[in-house]
């Protein structure tokens, strides 16, 4: 039930031309994106040229990778050479990337077609894509609601069928939460599994690139393409990358699942809780057993995250000073004045808020109380995950304690939005892989189920996700959307 696989088959059988498929997706963008607002730039000419070449190649019967001709979108904080990378920020509004991100290069090596760059919260800071300096993005399931964030553009583009898959980045839930809100699959791989080279850093020790797709199989295919060691990223793991798609196996009988009690009690909407409980029941029919357990450190995860991530961000964003590239304030008498004005005009409120938090936490006299203590808590969270994984194969939580909220709902209360990441943040703190899959068909709003595995056990998540996908009856859902 892979959308990528079925399109790839159509290309090979001559049933469908790449150019037609691309034209059709571009038409969807033209029709729907004025409402949805997923794309910040659409690479129409480049996509059609590439499609024409591929059609020629398919006609000649060339052997091509499965991703050849598959229309994708890339979050606007990942470089595609010679096109803009704005990070949805005024400070990079006209910045043209002079090089490809490693993930982009790997997708292009497989002849995937990048239809464009998609919207996000500015510098990936946010959970609603409302923090973009340029536009808001609406949830295709209910346009009065947010698509989640920060990879909201990626999720919306996939959910609205503008593309088959998209890349997002996930620092505290930025792939999984929008996938959950938009009713699609979102996969954050193990930290180090995918190269970060060419991803504009938010919090380097937490950031990870991953796919957003309609099905579990599609996520496996995309992860196969982008994962593996990269000598340009010192934190990328030398761990051998298996063939995830090839090794997909929905037989999960005997798998033991732990459900942290803390993430099904406080702050969780009743319909989310009910959906997750129903999903766990469905898994039992597949031979999976589950039980509640306790992870006390989860309560500290959000506050810990809001020290470490802003601390790293305050340093990562220092380079946007107007000296070498990007926005530069005019009419300043001194370089100091120019830097102040550039950053003052260039960054939005949420970014400034986090730079200030981070700067404060790293300041002399506060470092031990905040940053050092947060790192200690981070180690406790990692240890508690280790302990849990000694007992369970997979940990399951709701991806988000809520369904998609209304546009503007958290506008004046950033803290209430920070809490929304309570289930996703601990995963980044421990560097683990986690998959968000739709709990149920969207009625009325999608609920995401988060599956978490030990480091480098992505296959286990994909297998369990596939098993769930098969019993949950997504086929109907897909047909509705593909019509």
């Amino acid at each position: 039930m892979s959308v990528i696989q079925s399109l790839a088959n159509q290309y090979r059988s001559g049933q469908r031309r790449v150019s037609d498929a691309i034209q059709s997706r571009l038409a969807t963008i033209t029709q729907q994106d004025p409402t949805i607002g997923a794309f910040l730039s659409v690479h129409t000419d480049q996509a059609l040229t590439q499609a024409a070449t591929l059609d020629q190649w398919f006609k000649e019967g060339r052997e091509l990778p499965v991703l050849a001709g598959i229309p994708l979108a890339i979050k606007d904080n990942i470089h595609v050479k010679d096109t803009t990378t704005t990070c949805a920020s005024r400070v990079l509004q006209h910045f043209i990337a002079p090089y490809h991100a490693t993930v982009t290069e790997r997708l292009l090596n497989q002849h995937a077609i990048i239809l464009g760059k998609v919207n996000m919260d500015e510098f990936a800071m946010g959970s609603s894509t409302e923090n973009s300096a340029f536009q808001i993005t609406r949830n295709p399931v209910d346009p009065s609601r947010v698509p989640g964030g920060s990879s909201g553009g990626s999720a919306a583009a996939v959910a609205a069928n503008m593309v088959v898959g998209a890349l997002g980045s996930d620092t505290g839930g930025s792939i999984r939460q929008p996938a959950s809100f938009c009713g699609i699959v979102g996969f954050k791989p193990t930290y180090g599994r995918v190269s970060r080279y060419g991803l504009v850093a938010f919090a380097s020790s937490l950031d990870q690139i991953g796919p957003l797709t309609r099905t579990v199989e599609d996520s496996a295919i995309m992860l196969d393409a982008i994962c593996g060691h990269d000598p340009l990223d010192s934190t990328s793991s030398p761990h051998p990358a298996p063939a995830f798609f090839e090794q997909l196996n929905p037989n999960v009988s005997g798998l033991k699942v732990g459900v942290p009690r803390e993430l099904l009690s406080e702050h969780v909407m009743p319909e989310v809780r009910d959906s997750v409980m129903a999903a766990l029941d469905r898994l039992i029919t597949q031979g999976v057993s589950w039980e509640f357990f306790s992870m006390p450190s989860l309560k500290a995860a959000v506050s810990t995250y809001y020290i470490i991530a802003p601390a790293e961000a305050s340093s990562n964003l220092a380079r946007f000073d107007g000296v070498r590239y990007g926005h530069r304030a005019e009419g300043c008498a001194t370089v100091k004045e120019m830097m102040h004005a550039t950053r003052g005009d260039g960054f939005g409120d949420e970014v400034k808020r986090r730079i200030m938090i981070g700067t404060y936490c790293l300041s002399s006299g506060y470092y031990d109380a905040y940053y050092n203590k947060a790192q200690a808590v981070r180690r406790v969270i990692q240890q508690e995950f280790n302990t849990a994984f000694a007992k369970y194969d997979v940990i399951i939580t709701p991806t988000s304690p809520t369904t998609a909220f209304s546009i503007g709902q958290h506008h004046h209360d950033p803290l209430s939005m920070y809490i929304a990441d309570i289930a996703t943040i601990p995963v980044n703190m421990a560097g683990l892989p986690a998959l968000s899959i739709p709990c149920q068909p969207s009625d009325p709003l999608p609920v995401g189920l988060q599956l978490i595995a030990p480091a480098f056990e992505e296959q286990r998540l994909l297998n369990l996700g596939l098993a769930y996908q098969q019993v949950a009856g997504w086929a109907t859902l897909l047909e509705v959307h593909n019509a």
Partner: protein
Amino acid sequence: MRKPVIGIEIHAQLNTKTKLFCACSTQFGAPPNTHICPVCLGLPGALPVLNQQAVTHAMMAGMALNTTIQAVSVFARKNYFYPDLPKGYQISQYDQPICLAGWVDIPTESGTKRIGITRIHIEEDAGKLLHQGADTIAGSTHSIVDLNRASTPLIEIVTEPDIRSATEARQVVETIREHLIHLGICDGNMEEGSLRADINISLRESDTSPFGTRCEIKNVNSFRSIERAIQIEMTRQNALLDRGETVIQQTRQYDEATQTTRPLRDKEESHDYRYFPEPDLTPLVISSEWMARVRDALPELPAHRRNRYHQAGLSPFEIDVIVADPHACTYLDAVEQAGATYPVAAKWVVGDLMAWLKQENRGYDTCPLTPSSLAELLACVADGTLSGKLAKGVLETCLSTGETPRTVIQKTGSTQVSDEGELTTIIDQILDANPDVVEKIKAGKGGATQFLVGQVMKETKGRANPDVVRRVLSGRLGI
């Protein structure tokens, strides 16, 4: 005058081929902004990859300065805004540097003194600002940025506050510089900024009083400036204390032109660098195998060389001159290996050879006369085939033509004439032609003999063996 307490931080540029975190060249003097890439430009999304050669260089420095190499060290970000700093932070090492707790011995008038080395860490350099419209930043209309130097590898060597005079301070920098040069990890060029020293200095009433408030002097870029800057700063601090005022802890800049130090910033205005571990790099882990490999390949250190040359009978002057240049050491050792004795070889290496190289602006490593050729020439002097004077001539020809001594001697036939019969014939002719001189000598004016020796030399174009000439003359004149 109160007593100074001095500690020094030396920044040394490592002469790796590429930068610390990317593959750009470190070559000095290229056109501005030609050795740059997304990484050293600090473009968004670019990530650092550590240059292993720089780590090896830092380990070599650490071993030569008797520090303990740390199996695990950690890179940290030092955050501050400056237009020559592309990322808005410098990647350095902070609380877990690569080398800790060593020492270096320096010569003083009262013998060798041991100076503690607190630490050595690895860090990247910043770019360069070129101020336009004026010579300095003051009065300039604008500045342009050259990032060729951005991210070139440095080590910072920090001494303990063990230094007690300006002379000692200079000696510490000279000794450490000599070590780095002999290790082949830094060219030691202070003018080009390959070696820079910051000096921390405070005064106290006596050798046992607690330390006073210190000032850091930056921008001291020659040995002479080190001594002068310290003397000037000592005088300044002493005058303050004499007047009953206090020294304010601050960073000061030495101004060579006005012979003053002036404040750059006070402690209160000092940057809060917000150090934290660099998340883009994993901790630097050095295996015991790597450590052993570097230790085994460590070149001979200057102190050892000095001692060896001293044992071999070289003069202190020769030792100083030769040890100042590791290529000279290598050359001298090779001449000795090829059969010459150290004292004889050193005379030539420090004398005629060095003079020629200086004049031609060349180094021993590119000397057209190979060490074995020089040894061959010296063998000819030892066995009497050539006089010292003839040998100098042959050496000059060898150096200018690139020919071997053997070839030059054969071509010019310039071997020494020691044959007594041949010389007697010539001497008799000269005695006949100079009866007045013969008379003078017989009258007791022995000094006139030298004139006759000179005449023989002239006749033989300098090839006559002067010892034989004197012996024959003595016999002929009966003196």
